[in-house]
Each structure stands twice: as structure tokens, then as C-alpha cells.
């Protein structure tokens, strides 16, 4: 391994670490960084100049339709494919030319379980631990602990081929973390499995992250990205079209403030009265129980509540309506979310 250590040359001073909106991102916060990654296959550019960084302790989501370049990006980052150009850093070290040392710090869970049908659950985890050089006593202890943690203790002696899809996926995730990687790559972790298993896996991902594992997740489930990820990158036809936290992405695309009031009776007269009183807002009455106020700027709640109450109605709830990630995705990429859903269903089948 000494050779590999030498090959993992530290990069020279890097003035180009990306900055965050709230100030300069400290270098030690960056776990993984890709700079201008390009991958061409026989004239087709699968990944086209992708630059991004993954912060320590976050769940970073790669969201895009099938064929967008998500899996190719994971293959490049994990050393399963060689980039045509570009540079990759893990913990500040360039590993582009020699990904082997970096692989010791990575856990990889592919979109299809790739464990051994012939081995049982225990054997599979034990073998995967050995691949990372973990000694016998330690790997047995870790295997038992993971089977317990993932609810597979009873199935530990069953052959992998007898597992359900959900169990297979869980064991594959367990295999991905048995060597306690710094970063876990999850490629479409809930695609093709039943709702209950998908829910369990999302919970497991959340738990792993809370215990300190940084996660790089690709998905075309918009709701999954919205629920799990701290930051999200949209990838379309190999190009990263937007990266940001959920908040940032929403904020960028919230062109107006929309406040919805739930009232006991939203009469036409009340709506007209509010419109006269607040000419800066547009007052809408979607139904007889709700009033919606739209403004280019902010909306002051207190005078509004007083006005409604003065009109003889009672407000039970007031809430700001924000665009969903789905709406943001559609606006940014121009890809209809229905198409993503269709692809997802197709992949399930």
C-alpha cells in the first residue's frame, strides 16, 4: 500500500475551493471534490464537465432522469471508470490517476445488488469485510452487529439468493458500510423494491448519516431527494444544471410570496374587502374555506388577520405556500416530473 500512498499526491495549494453563500467553505469541510469531470464513450459524452463538492456529514443528492449520467458519475468517482478528463479529490488528495487508496475510504452500493448468491448473509458480509483487510475476529463482530442493526439477524444463515429484493438491498447497504467508509455511494437505493422496504431503507440512510456517514445518493425519486438530501445537484444529459441546498433551490425559484389562510367562511365579500384594504396583494378565493394572498414582496400577517377578523371570519391556519422540489426541478431542467415518474415505473417493472 506504500506505493499507493505515494501515488496519492497532495494537490498544490488550491485557491479554487468553492465558496458557500454564507462565507468561504473551509477546506476540511470538503470530503469529495470533482473538478470538470468529463467522460466520453465512443463519441457520446456521458458526463460533461461536472464540478461539485460533497461536504463532510451531508447527504448529497444527484437527481436526474435515466441516462442523465448519474451512474457514470458514481463509476468515475469510485474508480470503476476512468475520466476522459477532470480531477477528483478525496480528503483534499488527488486520486484521479490512482483510485485504489481512495477506494478504502468509500462504500459503494450499486443500483442492483451485487453480492454472492452462493453465500449466506453472514458469509457475504464477512467476505466483504475481508476485502478491506479487516481481520477475522473484528469482521465477525461487525458482521453480527450489522445483521442486527439492519434487522437481518434471523436471515443471516440463509443464502443470499433466497432473500427478498428489500432484504437484498439492505444487506448490500450493510456490505457497503462494513469497513466504515468515510463516504457511502448509493445508486438508486430504493428503485425496484416495495414501499415498506423503501421506507425502511430511507430510515436506515437517515440513521447512517446521523451517525456521521457522508452519503452520495443518486435517485430519480424527487420526493426521496427532498426528504433525505441536504444538498441536491440536478443532472441532465451529463451536465450539472444546478446545485444547492433545498432551501437555496426553493428560494431561487420562489418568485412570489403566497400565503394561504384557512377560514371558517371565505365569502366573496370578504375577499373583495381584503383586496380593497391590501391593494399590494392579489387576493384569491380557491374555495369557500380558503383565501390565498399573493405578493411580490413579503406579507404582513398581523394586519391581515385583523382585517379578516373584522370581516366576521375566523382564521384557523395560515401557511406560506412554497414551490415543491418537483416544481423547481421542472423549472430548472425543463423535464416534466411525469416523465421521471414514468421512467421510475418502467424501471420498477
Amino acid at each position: 500500500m506504500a506505493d499507493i500512498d505515494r501515488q496519492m499526491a497532495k494537490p498544490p495549494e488550491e485557491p479554487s475551493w468553492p465558496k458557500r453563500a454564507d462565507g468561504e467553505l473551509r477546506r476540511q469541510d470538503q470530503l469529495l471534490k470533482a473538478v470538470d469531470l468529463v467522460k466520453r464513450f465512443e463519441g457520446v459524452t456521458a458526463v460533461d464537465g461536472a464540478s461539485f463538492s460533497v461536504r463532510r456529514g451531508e447527504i448529497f443528492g444527484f437527481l436526474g432522469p435515466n441516462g442523465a449520467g448519474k451512474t457514470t458519475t458514481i463509476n468515475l468517482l469510485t474508480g470503476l471508470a476512468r475520466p476522459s478528463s477532470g480531477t477528483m479529490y478525496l480528503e483534499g488528495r488527488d486520486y484521479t490517476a490512482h483510485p485504489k487508496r481512495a477506494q478504502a475510504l468509500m462504500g459503494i452500493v450499486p443500483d442492483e445488488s451485487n453480492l454472492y448468491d452462493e453465500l449466506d448473509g453472514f458469509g457475504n458480509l464477512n467476505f466483504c469485510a475481508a476485502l478491506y483487510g479487516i481481520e477475522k475476529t473484528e469482521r465477525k463482530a461487525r458482521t453480527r452487529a450489522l445483521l442486527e442493526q439492519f434487522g437481518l439477524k434471523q436471515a443471516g444463515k440463509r443464502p443470499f439468493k433466497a432473500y427478498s429484493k428489500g432484504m437484498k438491498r439492505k444487506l448490500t447497504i450493510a456490505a457497503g458500510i462494513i469497513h466504515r467508509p468515510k463516504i457511502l455511494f448509493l445508486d438508486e437505493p430504493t428503485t425496484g423494491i416495495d414501499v415498506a422496504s423503501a421506507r425502511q431503507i430511507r430510515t436506515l440512510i437517515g440513521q447512517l448519516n446521523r451517525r456521521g456517514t457522508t452519503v452520495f445518493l443518486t435517485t430519480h425519486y424527487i420526493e426521496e431527494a427532498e426528504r433525505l438530501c441536504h444538498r441536491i445537484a440536478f443532472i441532465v444529459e451529463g451536465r450539472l444544471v444546478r446545485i444547492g441546498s433545498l432551501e437555496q433551490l426553493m428560494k431561487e425559484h420562489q418568485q412570489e410570496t403566497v400565503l394561504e389562510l384557512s377560514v371558517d367562511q371565505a365569502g366573496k365579500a370578504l375577499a373583495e374587502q381584503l383586496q380593497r384594504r391590501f391593494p399590494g396583494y392579489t387576493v384569491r378565493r380557491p374555495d369557500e374555506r380558503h383565501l390565498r394572498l399573493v405578493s411580490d414582496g413579503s406579507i404582513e400577517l398581523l394586519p391581515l388577520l385583523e382585517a379578516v377578523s373584522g370581516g366576521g371570519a375566523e382564521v384557523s391556519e395560515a401557511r406560506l405556500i412554497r414551490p415543491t422540489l418537483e416544481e423547481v426541478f421542472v423549472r430548472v431542467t425543463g423535464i416534466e416530473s411525469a416523465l421521471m415518474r414514468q421512467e421510475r415505473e418502467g424501471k420498477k417493472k
Partner: protein
Amino acid sequence: MSSWTAFRAIVAKDMKTYYLKPPNISWGLIFPFAWMLMFYLRSRTPLDIRELLPGVVAMSILFGTTSMLAVTITFERRSRSFERLLLAPLELSLLMLAKTGGAILFGMLNAFVPIVVAAFVVDLSGVLWPAVIGSVLLIAATSTFLGLFISVAVHEVFEAQTFSNFFRFPMLFLCGLFIPISALPVFLRPLSFILPLTYGVDILKGAINDTGTLPLWVSFPVLLLFAAGLFLFSLRNIKRKWVL
């Protein structure tokens, strides 16, 4: 991180899940035993068995390793479990040595089946055992690396089987096992000398019956070169084809 732990785990897993399975054990035992029996029935004196032993040993190794490795690797690539190995922090050369290690061991075990059987029937005194063991190891290594070369060239398990036979059968007839090289047509003789099995069989013939035609100091290095060449060439192809 200990690469040796990973190496041992890969060899042990392959031995357990592929090579030491009942069908393979029975193949490993039955195949050489059947060859021995066939030659025994045809031979008139016990001495003939000793003469035939180098050929049977060589064939047992060749058939026990080449297609076995080609099939297991192709199978693992199809099921994507081979990706797991490529993603492990293990140098590719060490990884492939581990993957081929199980097949080499299996080939060596196969080789000693006819030797053990023959020991009950004929007197094996005077056999140059270090040369036998060395040649068995090198024939097993070259045959296994030939299997590796085949596995890189194919995509499907059935292709691995077919392609293995494409190499194995011409090799059997050209390596001097059935027909002495000197009795082959002149234009075929150069072909014999570009086959690793020719040198392995010649060492075995020399070590068992003292009928080798090439000196050991030529055959051993040539066999070693074949093994290294096939391994390195396969490694280059793996890097080019499997790590895209």
C-alpha cells in the same frame, strides 16, 4: 489494511463456492481417473502406464482449470459481483492473482489424482519429484491464465466454454502428447513450440520417464515466460476493457 487478508479471502471463497463443489470434485476425480482407466485398458504392460502418466497429468490440469476459471469470472461479471472485487482497495494484479489462485490450486489437486492412482499400479521410483511439482505448478498457472485471457475476451458463460475448447483441443494434438512432435508435419512443428503445454509435457516426460527432448533449463523458463506473458496481457486487457 492487509492485502493478504483480502487475497486469502478471495482464494478461500472461490475454492468453497466454485472449485470444491461436489460436481467439480467428481469431475476433478473422474476425468483423470477415466483417462487412466482408458489408457490402462489399452496398455499391455504396467510400464505403459508410466509412459502415459505425463500426458494424463497435463490433460487433467488443462481441463480442470482453463474453462473453470473462464466460466467463473464470466459468471461473476454477468452477476456484477466481480464489480465488488474491482471496487475493493486491492491492486488489480493482486486481485487477479487471488482470483486465479483458487483455479491453480484446483488444477494441481487434479494433477495428483492420476499420480496417486498410478502409484498403486506401477513403481514410480526414480521420478524426479521436484521437476514434476514445478511443472505441475507452471502448467496449472499457464492453463489458468489462459482461462483468464479467455474470460476477458468473452461476455457470456457459453462463449467461455466454447472459446476454451478452441484453444484446448488443438493444443492436445500439437503438444507432443499423442503424437511426438518429430512425427508431426514439418509445417505444424513451429506451432507446437508456441504452445505452453509442449514445454510442460516435456518436463513431465523427462521427470517421470527420462524421455524429455528439451533441457529443463529451457523448458522451465519458457513456461514461466508463457505464464507471466499471459497474466500480464490479460491484466492489460482487463484494465482496458473492464475499467472503462
